């Protein structure tokens, strides 16, 4: 029987790239960037693709912003006094409210896949950063063996594709976005790539 490690080793480079991309997005969106993450952003190398150009923009901005400035920007966008400019939750985008049926459906699917929320996670599971983290895990097999592409697609379609593109577009254009504008653009473009790529595999 194929071990988990064997299954992971059989992942192509391109599937690993997808996984890393989701992990990067989850890190960028889950918390304000610390000095280490800002440093990582400055090491990114974009090619001449649309995503590559957005990555290059992010890299340049990361080199010209302080940790404090980027934290202020993150807080204005996502936290605010009572509410940030954006509310990055699947339930909110689909129904206008938090903790509604879209979240329940996600929890059901997570249960099916053996994914459990960590005890110290402060937000509900349908936060964009958590969803990106889950996609990473499903691709590389953090919750068991790597999930087959049709099943990844089912997860993506039900919990990400139906709202995240709009969220990333909002992120790109929200009032306080400077560093986070190219992050929004990167996310939006990545969602398009994912949607198209799943159709090729399906």
């Amino acid at each position: 029987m194929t071990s988990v490690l064997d299954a992971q080793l059989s992942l192509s480079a391109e599937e690993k790239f997808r996984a890393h991309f989701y992990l990067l997005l989850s890190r960028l969106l889950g918390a304000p960037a610390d000095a280490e993450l800002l440093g990582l952003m400055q090491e990114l190398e974009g090619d001449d693709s649309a995503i590559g150009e957005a990555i290059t923009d992010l890299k340049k901005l990361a080199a010209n912003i302080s940790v404090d400035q980027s934290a202020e920007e993150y807080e204005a966008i996502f936290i605010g006094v009572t509410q940030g400019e954006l509310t990055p939750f699947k339930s909110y985008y689909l129904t206008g409210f938090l903790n509604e049926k879209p979240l329940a459906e996600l929890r059901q699917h997570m249960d099916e896949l053996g994914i459990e929320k960590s005890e110290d996670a402060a937000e509900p599971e349908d936060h964009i950063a958590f969803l990106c983290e889950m996609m990473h895990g499903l691709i590389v097999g953090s919750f068991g063996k790597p999930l087959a592409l049709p099943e990844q697609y089912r997860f993506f379609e039900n919990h990400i594709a139906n709202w995240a593109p709009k969220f990333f577009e909002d992120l790109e254009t929200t009032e306080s976005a400077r560093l986070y504008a190219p992050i929004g653009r990167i996310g939006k473009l990545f969602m398009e790539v994912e949607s198209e790529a799943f159709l090729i595999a399906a």
Partner: protein
Amino acid sequence: MDKKKSATPSRREFLKTAGLGVGVAAVAGGIVSADDAEAATLQDEKKTGYRETEHVKKYYDSARM
């Protein structure tokens, strides 16, 4: 049903030209520990031997909302 885990050439080609493979993979080592098998704050409740290294803990502490 086709049980191949690897992607078809055309999917790989598409992903290759999408610009994902440049740069992010190079910094991936800074995002997660060297072994991609150790992942999420979202833990497998079956506990398949996943253990948090200090590096992973530090990442997730910083990522915690």
